[in-house]
């Protein structure tokens, strides 16, 4: 029941919000998002920390085709539901000092998107998963189209077509597996798992590519990333946060739940190539990030680098890799929202995002400089910040797969430090100039967002155990199942 509430509460709230006019829209949206977070925390309170799927709800949806409305939460889903429900109120809070035209539609779309995202993370039926997966695309498309920046029509359309093309391959893969389920066919996750694992290595390879392309576009992994920098740059700040903080995790989550157990032999067969692409993307995106002049674009590229490492860790199919990916998905979500918020703060005060044009903000606003520094250190994975735990585990996981690739991927830590610290230096330190001399102090809501994010960075950096405890039984069970399927 609580799963249904988690899915449909944001939808109902979002639709009701459409009928609200006036300035209280923001507050109501924030209230709804906080309530949703409270529901998620309540679910966590009743969650048994073992490998079972809990709060299940299975309802025959399209009976004649074996499609069910089957949802449930295990450790992996729990962590991502927590991330989603935690980030959405933060994201809404970041917009408190921004005046969007037609705010009721804006916040309504954000909440409807939250519904689809939660739906993706709790689906246990292939068809349902696909429907939620596509459903998440429509609100974000309109958020970017209606409230985005320059040249948004072309850029958001490219984004839409890219992801839709990837998804259609996934649909093909799912239908293929569905037709291999016994009897009257079923989309239930267990039936799809056994159908996928009963295929031979060649056919599992086909399934791997059909599914992997969809996830690779969403994350994005090199060479499917070309939509991402433009879209992240053009989207309104909150849209970028939804995309990078949460929506990207649909891709990595998809690989864990809907790729590894569906085609383990296929993953094993093509792991070298896929991890190679991911690792190459890590270094490639880091190098491009170094030469960016626009700070928002730089963070967009850094996101490609981070997510490439996550993908590599998952595909290496060992405990450290998958466990690290789960932690890093959470940390990356929090950190990237923080970074994009900082970009937004700077842009609102100086009307520019160009790194070279800024400088010396620390002299004017040391408090902001300090909070920025914490977010930045989390993002370059300094020990005792949340970024460190995940990145360490991920590199360890990739190392077990192939030491050379781990060495190559490890460059990202160095390169990440280079571009992040350099831009910090250029923006915050040095001489104050005409643009930055009047840098206004932080408003209450802005301070609140940064404090929440910094607290999360430090608390989970020092003490990540509560998070790993939620997720590790489920990950262990997943990997044990994979070992059986692979015959190791």
């Amino acid at each position, binding site marked *: 029941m609580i799963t249904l509430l988690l899915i449909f509460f944001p939808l109902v709230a979002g639709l009701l919000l459409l009928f609200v006019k006036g300035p209280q829209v923001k507050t109501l949206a924030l209230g709804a998002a906080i309530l949703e977070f409270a529901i998620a925390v309540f679910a966590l309170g009743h969650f048994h920390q073992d490998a079972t799927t809990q709060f299940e709800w299975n309802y025959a949806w399209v*009976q004649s*085709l074996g499609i069910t409305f089957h949802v449930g939460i295990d450790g992996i889903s729990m962590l991502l539901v927590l991330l989603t429900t935690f980030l959405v109120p933060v994201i809404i809070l970041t917009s408190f000092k921004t005046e969007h035209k037609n705010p009721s539609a804006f916040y309504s779309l954000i909440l409807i998107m939250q519904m689809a995202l939660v739906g993706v993370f709790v689906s246990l039926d292939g068809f349902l998963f696909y429907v939620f997966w596509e459903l998440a*695309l429509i609100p974000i498309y309109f958020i970017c189209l*209606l409230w985005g920046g320059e040249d948004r029509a072309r850029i958001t359309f490219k984004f839409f077509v890219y992801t839709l093309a990837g998804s259609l391959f996934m649909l093909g893969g799912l*239908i293929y597996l*569905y037709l291999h389920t016994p009897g009257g066919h079923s989309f239930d996750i267990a039936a799809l798992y056994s159908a996928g694992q009963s295929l031979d290595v060649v056919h599992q390879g086909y399934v791997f590519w059909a599914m992997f392309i969809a996830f690779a576009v969403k994350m994005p992994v090199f060479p499917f990333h070309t939509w991402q920098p433009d879209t992240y740059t053009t989207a309104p700040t909150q849209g970028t946060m939804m995309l990078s903080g949460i929506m990207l995790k649909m891709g990595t989550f998809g690989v864990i739940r809907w790729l590894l157990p569906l085609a383990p032999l296929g993953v094993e067969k093509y792991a070298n190539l896929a991890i190679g692409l991911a690792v190459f993307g890590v270094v490639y995106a880091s190098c491009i990030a170094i030469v960016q002049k626009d700070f928002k674009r730089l963070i967009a590229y850094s996101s490609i680098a981070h997510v490439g490492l996550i993908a590599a860790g998952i595909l290496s199919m060992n405990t450290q890799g998958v466990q690290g990916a789960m932690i890093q998905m959470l940390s990356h979500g929090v950190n990237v929202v923080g970074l994009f918020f900082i970009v937004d703060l700077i842009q609102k005060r100086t009307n520019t995002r160009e790194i070279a044009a800024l400088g010396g903000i620390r002299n004017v606003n040391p408090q902001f400089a300090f909070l920025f520094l914490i977010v930045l250190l989390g993002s370059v994975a300094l020990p005792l910040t949340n970024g460190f735990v995940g990145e360490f585990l991920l590199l360890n996981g990739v190392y077990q797969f192939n030491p050379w690739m781990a060495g190559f991927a490890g460059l990202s830590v160095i390169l990440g430090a280079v571009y992040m610290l350099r831009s910090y230096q250029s923006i915050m330190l040095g001489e104050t100039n005409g643009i930055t001399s009047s840098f206004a102090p932080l408003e209450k809501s802005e301070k609140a967002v940064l404090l929440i994010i910094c607290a999360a960075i430090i608390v989970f950096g020092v003490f990540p155990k509560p998070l790993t405890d939620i997720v590790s039984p489920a990950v262990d069970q997943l990997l044990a199942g994979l070992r059986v399927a692979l015959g190791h």
Partner: protein
Amino acid sequence: MKALVLLSSLGVIALLAEIFSFKKLLYPIVLLGLVTAFVLNVFDWDTNHTYYKMMQYDNYAVAFTGVIIVVAFLWFIMAEGFFKEESNLTDHFALVLFALVGAVMMVSYNNMAMLFLGIEILSIPMYILAGSSKSDISSNEAAFKYLIMGAFATGFLLFGIALIYGATGSFDLSEIADAVSAGTASTAIFSVGVLLMLIGMAFKVSAAPFHFWAPDVYQGAPTVITAFMSTIVKTAAFAAFLRLFSTTFMEVSGTWMNVVWVMAALTLLVGNITAVVQTSTKRMLAYSSVAHAGYMLLALLAGNDYSNSAILFYAAAYSIGSIGTFCIVHIISNAKNGDGVDSFNGLAKTNPFLAVVMTIALLSLAGIPPTAGFFAKYYIFTSAFVAGNVGLVLIAIIASLVGVYYYFRLIIAMYFKESTSTEAVPVESNHKLLLLFIAIIIIVMGLFPDFVIKLL
């Protein structure tokens, strides 16, 4: 069958209205008649009546008749303005109602003669209706083109029927099927007959390369008639096509499968790609209607347990989405004196309601969840997958992506482009209700498709 009788009598009543001058009452009478016809049709469910071996009212016929009547009811609400011109009022009613009679015959025939009669009863009113805005030269052109091309197609169809009669000695579908399975029909004459009938049917459903009439006729005809042609006529033609080829001619699928494969691929590609470059929304929707025929051909080609139900669902989803889009195009082109894509600029600001319904209908036509169009496409793809037509499914997937491009051009125009005028387009309240209903039904069919697909 009762529905058929009722519809025919409604047509006659419409003619009598001129004599006994109750023209004003005709519109409510027809709406009431359609509701009654639907109810009567429901009572035919599971009865499987046969009428002198000419018509067979099996569940297939009842389901398609149901879809046709529902779409016709929506169409009448959309086209209310079409029935307001004083001079031709009764003609319009009678012609449309007789066309519906033809459509119902086409989904329930059991004899080649009935198929031919149904097609002609449907087509002849359509030739006239396409030219019904008499002073408009492109409407005249449309009627003329449609008549000439339609006559050719009918010629092919009749020739095909004649050859099949020659090979099997019967017009009766089941007797032809018996002759086919007994092996007595495996002559060249029979194969040629099947192919000629295929051409005739492909013309009626506007499948490439027999689609050339469609864009001109759809664009030239009054918008309401275009809506009728691209929904009811197409549904009936597909039902007739499927009824013939999935049962009687299934045994000789070797003769026509490859032809239909090529046709489906061509239709998907030509329809979708040509639609991209259109600037007139009506013409764009005409090409999109050609493209949708391609998707339905996929299910026809699959020829398995899913086919009937997949085509029924697709036809219903597509027709309802089309009525919605054509209704809005009709409203906009009347208000702005043009149906170019740019006349939709800024609609989200001036008429947010129209823009939202249009978006839902276009998303459904493009096949994006959670709309009816998505489930329809999914179902068609599954049916083609089961039949092993993976190559065709890949083509269809690429074609759908191209489809997204032109449907989204309208969406981008509505939400992104600035309008030249800030005045809202006036919308009548019955159109508002209709559009609201269509938007709801598109979502409901997408979320709960079971109530349609378990029919067949």
